[in-house]
C-alpha cells in the first residue's frame, strides 16, 4: 500500500519535495514507516548518525493527532514525521 510521509524541520533534508512516498505491505503500522525512514537515512546519509538519531526520536502524526508506533495504516494514508521540536 502507498503511504505519504509529510516532512517537517530537519526531516525536510531527506527529500527535495515536502514529502516522501513509501510502498508498504498490507497491515503495516507506523513502526514500519519509521523502519523505512531509517533505511532512507542510512542510504542518503551513511556517515551521519545525527539523522539516524533524529528519525529514531521523531514522533508521527495523523492530521493533528500524535500516533504511536502500533497505529495501523490504511492505503493512501498521509502521516507526518515530527522531529524534536524547538520553536518560540
Amino acid at each position, binding site marked *: 500500500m502507498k503511504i505519504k510521509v509529510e516532512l*517537517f524541520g530537519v526531516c525536510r533534508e531527506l527529500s527535495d519535495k515536502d514529502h516522501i512516498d513509501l510502498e508498504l505491505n498490507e497491515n503495516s503500522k507506523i513502526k514500519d514507516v519509521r523502519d523505512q525512514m531509517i533505511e532512507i537515512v542510512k542510504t542518503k546519509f551513511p556517515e551521519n548518525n545525527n539523522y539516524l538519531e533524529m528519525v529514531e526520536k521523531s514522533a508521527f502524526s495523523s492530521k*493533528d493527532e*500524535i500516533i504511536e508506533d502500533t497505529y495501523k495504516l490504511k492505503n493512501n494514508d498521509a502521516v507526518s514525521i515530527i522531529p*524534536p*521540536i524547538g*520553536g*518560540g
Partner: protein
Amino acid sequence: MFHCDVVDIKNISLDKAQKFIESHKCGASLFFIGTVRNHNNEKEVTGITYDSHDAMVKKSFEEIYNEAIKKLDLQHPVAFVEHAKGYVPLGGISIIIAVACKHRKQVYDFSRFIIEEIKKRTPIWKKEHYKGEDAEWLDGQKLEIKK
C-alpha cells in the same frame, strides 16, 4: 477569549494583538515578543527560517490556553498568540503573546506559562542562517506522546 495563528512575517502585528486583547474587564495586559537575535552557539546569526505543522501548532496553542485557565485561576483571561512561519531576518518578530486579565500577577503567570509550554510541546522548528557558514536546523526536544 482567544486567538491564535501561524502567519507570514509580513502579517505578524502588534497592533492586531493590542486591539484583540483590549477589554474593560481587564486591569492588566502584557506583551511578550520573541525576536531573532544576532548570535547563537558562538555563530553570527543573520536570520531564522521557522517551519511549522500548522494544524498541530494551532491545536497545541488552544490546549495551552485552556490548561492555563484551569491551572492559574485566571479572571477574564484574554490571549493572542501568533507565531511567524518562513524566513525571519535579524530583529524580526518570531512570536507575539499578548495577554490580559483582571490583575497584574495573572498576566505575568499567564504569559510565562504560554511561552514555556510552547517551547516544550508545539511543533515548530528553527533553521538558523549564519554569516559565512551553512544554515543549520537547531536541535530540539523530543515530542512526548500523551498517554
